[in-house]
């Protein structure tokens, strides 16, 4: 069930009524749990079984890890959790990819092998909830947390619908304490939760789907060879689209959870105002980047084992981060690019960080634009269907390939897209050191009303092609 659907509005309205009835807290949690299963089953009911498997296995694995002190007794439980979660992820998400690559490899060796095409449907959100449950067992293994006392609380942690299919990836240490006592939003929190929901929908429906997606689709049509201008417009358009799509989902999730009295963490902090790639990953998909940092980069040694090993760890972490997004070499290249960016930045910082020039606003702005430009280059690989298309698009953007067309874009579309993306960048720049709540608090309630009304009207009158949230596929 997507947030941008009428069925979700009905579902959410019904659930709010149930949640605010004078019922015991345990019953309310049970309501939230079955509602979350219903929410997930709306896509494909049989896949709820995967959620159950992940929930039950990690519940017992965590208990086993916690019970024993000796590593050789704890490890089997950890491997069980890793095996089941990563096994499910591997089979459903990477099965086809691995088979394709295996076939290509044996064909290159001169062996003609044509297997039956695997007919695997990727369960929505599998990357998110497997990482979420893994963080639970890993935290217990690393001694950072204790197992949940209540299976109901734990099942709700795994399944809580606002963040279930596209994050944020919530840690048990943040969520489980919230399950202990009755959660009710205050009137102010409830109203603000609805505000966040509307802001998220506005980002998704109006900006991502209404304004940017049509232009991006034209430029990234595999049948089209865009020229330099069209390629840049399509790519900066995609930068805006994917931000508004994904951050829109996270904002909706935070708003919905807030209406129910729960707190889930921010996932974005105006990332296109980042002055460098380390800063970018502190602002973009924060819950994933911290997951990778805590459970991959740091266990690999982080920056504690010398310069070369640090660069190697960064690259490995980013490659896996890229692969997490999708079973395709384009995502691997995207991750590699970010690994290179981060390593290069780390090396440059060592040489140049002492200069005072970096703190001057014009230089900062230039750094923001440079970072954004390089991030856009990465987005090319994220958006293209194939590596050859991505290489051609990136070459065109860098002026290495000439020719190409306007990809069917007229001047007004180009201008409109450029203005939309420029507006996003300006908002990010101005908001880079503040929060939306701080800004809202400075405005009068009437101004806020006008803003909400405008967004509501725009959402209602922006019907277009029905598009799923991009991050559902991950």
């Amino acid at each position, binding site marked *: 069930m997507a947030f941008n659907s009428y069925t979700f509005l009905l579902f959410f309205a019904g659930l709010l009524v149930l949640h605010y009835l004078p019922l015991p807290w345990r019953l309310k949690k049970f309501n939230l749990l079955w509602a979350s299963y219903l929410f997930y089953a709306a896509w494909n009911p049989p896949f709820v079984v995967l959620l159950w498997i992940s929930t039950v296995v990690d519940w017992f694995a965590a208990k086993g890890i916690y019970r024993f002190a000796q590593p050789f007794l704890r490890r089997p439980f950890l491997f069980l959790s890793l095996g089941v979660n990563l096994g499910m992820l591997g089979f459903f998400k990477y099965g086809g990819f691995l088979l394709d690559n295996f076939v290509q490899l044996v064909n290159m060796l001169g062996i003609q092998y044509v297997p039956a095409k695997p007919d695997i449907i990727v369960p929505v959100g599998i990357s998110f909830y497997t990482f979420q449950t893994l963080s639970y067992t890993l935290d217990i293994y690393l001694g950072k947390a204790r197992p949940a006392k209540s299976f109901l609380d734990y099942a709700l942690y795994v399944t809580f619908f606002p963040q279930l299919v596209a994050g944020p990836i919530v840690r048990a*240490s943040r969520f489980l304490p919230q399950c202990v006592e009755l959660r009710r939003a205050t009137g102010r929190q409830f*109203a603000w939760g609805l505000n966040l929901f509307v802001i998220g929908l506005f980002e998704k429906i109006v900006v991502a789907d209404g304004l940017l997606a049509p232009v991006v689709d034209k430029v990234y049509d595999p049948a089209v060879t865009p020229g330099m201008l069209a390629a840049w417009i399509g790519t900066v358009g995609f930068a805006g689209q994917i931000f508004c799509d994904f951050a829109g989902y996270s904002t909706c999730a935070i708003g919905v959870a807030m209406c129910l009295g729960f*707190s889930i963490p921010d996932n974005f902090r105006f990332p296109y105002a980042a002055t460098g790639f380390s800063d970018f990953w502190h602002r973009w998909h924060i819950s994933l980047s911290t997951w990778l940092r805590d459970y991959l980069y740091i266990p690999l040694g982080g920056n504690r084992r010398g310069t070369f090993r640090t660069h190697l760890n960064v690259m490995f972490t980013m490659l896996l981060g890229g692969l997490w997004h999708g079973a395709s070499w384009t995502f691997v290249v995207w991750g590699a690019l970010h690994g290179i960016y981060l390593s290069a930045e780390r090396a440059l910082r060592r040489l140049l960080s002492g200069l005072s020039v970096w703190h001057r606003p014009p230089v900062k702005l230039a750094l923001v634009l440079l970072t954004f430009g390089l991030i856009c280059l990465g987005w090319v690989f994220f958006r293209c269907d194939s590596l050859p298309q991505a290489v051609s698009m990136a070459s065109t953007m860098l002026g290495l390939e000439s020719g190409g067309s306007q990809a069917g874009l007229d001047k007004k579309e180009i201008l409109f897209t450029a203005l939309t993306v420029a507006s996003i960048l300006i908002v990010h720049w101005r908001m880079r050191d503040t*929060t939306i*709540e701080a800004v*809202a608090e400075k405005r009068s*309630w009437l101004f806020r009303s006008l803003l909400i009304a405008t967004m509501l009207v725009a959402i209602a*009158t922006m*019907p277009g092609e029905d598009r799923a949230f991009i991050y559902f596929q991950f």
Partner: protein
Amino acid sequence: MPSFTSSSSDRAPRGPGGLTWAVALLLAGAFLASAELFWRSRGMLPSVVDDVELWAYHRARIHEDQPKTLVLLGASRMKCDFSIATFRERFPDWRVVQLAVAGAGPVAALQDLAEDRAFSGVVICSVDADWLTGPRWDAQRPYCEHFHRGTSVNSQLNRLISAYLQSKFVVINPSVSALRTARKCMMKGEFPQAWYARCDFDRSRHCDFGLVDDLAAFRKRFELEVQRWYDSRGAVDPAAWLADLDKVGIEQMVRRIEDRSGRVIFVRLPTTGLRRSLEERCYPKRLFWDRFAAKTSAASIHFEDEPTLCGYRTPDMSHLEVQDTPRFTTALLDVLVRRGELGSEGRTAREETPPRQAWRTQALSTGQPKRSRTG
């Protein structure tokens, strides 16, 4: 412990949240109501967005428990020319399912129905020679695939709600969306005009050409498009065309439906003017339609063979005026009843025709088109 960002639920800004929302809803409601009145005052009527999900919803209705089902296949002509209301008046106990898709030929949908063992109704399939050419067979395949693999109860329910709202309110129609209106105002300094074709929840489309400002220019534009299309078509060999139809298995599709007591009726709906003459130049009726009709075991009706199906207004040379569709549908139903294609309401074909195979052999050997199944 992982260092997460600040909490998100304990940071709601100060201010009267309830009042803010009450005023916001009032403002938004007032604006939307005003916009609705404004668009209606300009002649706009609600129209349902026709998409794969709505198609899938109607496709699923075939499986509902009802003894008599009529499925309409084809492209835009079937959606515009056939009046479901007229059919229902005459055959109130039938269920009608409109599965035609504008701009896409019906071969894939016919195949899908043929493979659906639960279907045993009557199919009226609007085709022309161009839609039956090989490259265009799969035009409706994405719709069928979406029905079988892409849809869910949730997406169907969501589509039902949105279709219901679209059938009630103009303001949520994409043709007057905020973006489209803003673009039109900025680029041309005017508001969007009322669109001449609107769609109902049952997927029927109604063409009210009276809403077109400059009908001559409108027709000219279509003439240019049609000319360009047919100029781009190479010569088609009728024998190869017919052989291709064997290859795709049109006859097997018909047989599979007939084997389940269903029936398929191929119809060629009216076109006029330049379009008709270009069609005739590229696909002469005598060499294409008549041979196809002679070859298939299904019933077939070409509008030019039935005087009551000719002479209707088609301002864009391809689709009937909405006012004419009841009369046209009545005429078409008369023909079908006369030929016994709609069961007990008319004479049955099998009562009056010679054995099918013998008849087909006769038609093929004489090279004469099959004009009527009632002889």
